[in-house]
């Protein structure tokens, strides 16, 4: 996989101002953006998914241009083939787990039927051990199950890349460790590249080969090779 991202965006109201100016290239299948909250990681992810339009820049994934301000290219999020795992999973509360997972398979104006079997969705339901709760609603399942369901929903669409926004922040510490191991195993078994953003060094170490540190809207440091780069130490750690 190859990925070239240049994103510039000015955001702000009268009293608050934020400048996003991110640029990085990667050919890793496991990219991690690391940095404190408010650094612009989520904005970068939203720009890659097409949910945020940059002021200028260029986003190229596997040679396919998704956004180019100069060439006036802006592929709609629907056609980017980029999956997005939201921080709190954003499962549709009015649909069952199976309907959620099959959501991307239904093309028309109607949701997948409740109780009907969707073979492509079934594959991921079995892979994530969700068979017992296919008929449940998101409000009725645990945090770990929600994450598995959200991952299954994202993978059914056969995306070119999966973007993960702070994937474990909604989980309690014990579950976090387990889900992190699970996601790592998934990375090892699947071909699909993943870009994860997190403020947690443990996430970055487990899930990223190419680690980029983001601070105040910019890429601050990078560790292109697997290792323990010094950027892991938060910049403010020695000040306190």
């Amino acid at each position, binding site marked *: 996989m190859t990925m070239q991202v240049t994103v510039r965006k000015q955001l702000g109201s009268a009293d608050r101002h934020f400048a996003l100016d991110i640029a990085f290239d990667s050919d890793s299948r496991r990219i991690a953006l690391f940095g404190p909250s408010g650094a612009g990681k989520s904005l970068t992810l939203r720009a890659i*998914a*097409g*949910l945020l339009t940059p002021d200028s820049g260029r986003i190229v994934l596997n040679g396919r241009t998704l956004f180019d301000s100069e060439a006036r290219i802006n592929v709609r*999020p*629907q*056609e*980017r083939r*980029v*999956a*997005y795992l*939201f921080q*709190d999973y*954003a499962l*549709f*509360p*009015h649909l069952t787990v199976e309907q959620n997972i099959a*959501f*991307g398979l*239904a*093309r*028309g*104006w*109607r*949701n997948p039927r409740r109780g009907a079997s969707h073979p492509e969705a079934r594959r991921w339901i079995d892979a994530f051990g969700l068979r017992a709760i296919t008929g449940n*609603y*998101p*409000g009725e399942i645990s945090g770990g199950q929600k994450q598995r369901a959200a991952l299954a*929903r*994202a993978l059914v*669409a056969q995306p070119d890349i999966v973007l993960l926004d702070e994937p474990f922040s909604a989980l309690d510490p014990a579950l976090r460790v387990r889900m992190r191991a699970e996601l790592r195993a998934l990375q090892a078994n699947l071909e699909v590249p993943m870009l994860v953003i997190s403020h947690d060094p443990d996430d970055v170490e487990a899930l990223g080969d190419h680690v980029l540190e983001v601070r105040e809207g910019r890429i601050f440091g990078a560790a292109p090779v697997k290792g323990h780069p010094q950027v892991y130490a938060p910049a403010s750690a020695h000040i306190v």
Partner: protein
Amino acid sequence: MTTLEAVWVPLSLSLKVAGWATVLNAVLGVGAAFALSRWQSAARDVVDALLTLPLVLPPTVLGYYLLVLVGRRGIFGEWLGRLGIELVFTWQGAVVASTIVAFPLVLKSARAAFEGVDAQLEDAARVLGTPEAGIFFRVTLPLASRGIIAGVLLAFARALGEFGATLMVAGNLPGRTQTLSVAIYEAVQAGDDNTANLLVLVTSVTCVVLLVAAGRLVPPTRKAFR
């Protein structure tokens, strides 16, 4: 005229008029509410205020506006007449009057319901490849449906009780434009207390049933929203 007829004729006309007004409002009110909830513009508040006007203006003022606009010598009256549409002194005129009077009730509830839908869920559908129209019908509308249904029921109740604007536009023709509330007015004027009592009772019961149904649907239960 038997007592049964005295109740049934205006009741069925009221239900017909309120039913049509509700169908029209369900489409127009929900459409306008969705547009307003997504429209980023300074003019939005002005448009919202104008569309809410029927809620605060006296119905007689609305009726007068309607006569000016669609009356036989009104601004659009002649043009409508050539199309064969006659609104003054017809039940269709009563439908138009009721629709306008009840419109803000659907608009307000539906707009609040649409604004309460988590934008992230729409984004989630977007990255899953769902076209915008699909997002509306598969995510936004179902999640806003409770608020919308409650607003539509309120609008139905309001249309059922419409008096002022309806009287001015459609008049008081027994069997043709005489709705329940107009029939009550006439019964009282004529000193026919028995008919008046019966009509008042029927109207009250119908409205209470509707309001209980509306109250059941809003606020939404916690379980439905995680």
